[in-house]
């Protein structure tokens, strides 16, 4: 079998764990848990993000995410979505660790509701505290190489810059900055947010990202399960193209057929 066809040949590592799939998917916005589970299956994802919320004590018998997506088979990555201060995020992840026992977490500290842009001052503060408490935070961040470096120094196990605002589906608006982050990082870089369709995911991977995290692009597709398949293919294709090394660009044509021997 050719080198690139071996599925275990190109795993990526984060915080000492190894994963074959470079696609991380969210579990929000789906019609129901069954559709969500089917989309996760189709995506091939080995990690899903989950939110931490109050249990519904008025109706405790409602179906739960864990009934449909087995945390023994799929790695749960608890997030801090909805947190606007370091303290809220830290409190949320301490609870997540108690509920699931996991130290690998997704930290996001938001600056404002309109753009959901990360507040990097609070994010950095939270990263420092979490790392000291033994967490391994994968950190949603701005496409800011200085802030990214500080996050790494503070203990971030992955840098996850947005490609466009969360839920916008605009595709990568900042290819140059994403590439700079990839070139400087000593930890995995994953585009987190902004992907709208398959080609966006391929772009992220072709830039050399270690992975892509997405939710809305799959959940809000007319057919989420089919889009999940598309994203699986897009991430794999983009990764292969990156590894293959793309051709150089020219401004003018260059014929593919020989000029010699023309009749």
């Amino acid at each position, binding site marked *: 079998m050719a080198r690139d066809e071996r599925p275990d040949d190109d795993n990526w590592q984060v915080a000492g764990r190894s994963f074959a799939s470079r696609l991380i998917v*969210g*579990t*929000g*916005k*789906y019609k129901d*848990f069954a559709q*969500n589970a089917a989309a996760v299956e189709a995506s091939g994802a080995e990690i899903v*993000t*989950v*939110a*931490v*919320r*109050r*249990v519904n*004590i008025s109706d*405790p*018998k409602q179906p*739960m*995410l*864990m009934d449909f997506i087995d945390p023994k088979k799929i790695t*749960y990555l*608890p*997030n801090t*979505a909805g947190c606007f201060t370091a303290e809220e995020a830290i*409190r949320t992840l*301490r*609870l*997540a*660790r*108690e*509920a*699931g026992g996991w130290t690998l977490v997704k930290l996001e500290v938001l600056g404002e509701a309109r753009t959901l842009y990360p507040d990097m001052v609070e994010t950095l503060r939270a990263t420092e505290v979490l790392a000291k408490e033994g967490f391994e935070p994968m950190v949603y961040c701005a496409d800011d190489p200085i802030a990214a470096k500080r996050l790494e120094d503070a203990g971030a196990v992955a840098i996850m810059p947005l490609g466009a605002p*969360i*839920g916008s589906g605009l595709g990568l608006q900042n290819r140059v900055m994403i590439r700079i982050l990839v070139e400087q990082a000593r930890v995995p870089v994953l585009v987190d947010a902004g992907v709208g369709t398959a080609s966006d995911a391929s772009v992220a991977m072709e830039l050399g990202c270690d992975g892509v995290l*997405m*939710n*809305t692009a799959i959940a809000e597709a007319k057919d989420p399960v089919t889009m999940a398949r598309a994203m699986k293919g897009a991430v794999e294709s983009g990764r292969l193209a990156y590894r293959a090394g793309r051709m150089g660009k020219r401004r003018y044509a260059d014929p593919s057929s020989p000029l010699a021997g023309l009749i």
Partner: protein
Amino acid sequence: MFGFPVEQHETISIRINGQHRRVPKGISIADLALELGLEPARVAVERNLEIVPRSTLRDVAVEDGDDYEIVTFVGGG
């Protein structure tokens, strides 16, 4: 709402996820969760802003005026 005869016991007043509840005096947090219909293995409990380790849920008695947050994992991005 509780399965046992609350009226025969002294009750105390607590808050769970922002809602006031009366529960029997002396109940453990684990029994509280079970009575609420929750699986203790799937939730995390914060009592007066301090996490209660899951291993101690059976040992900690609910006290009058306690404020609880009980959380679990839900879908999210």
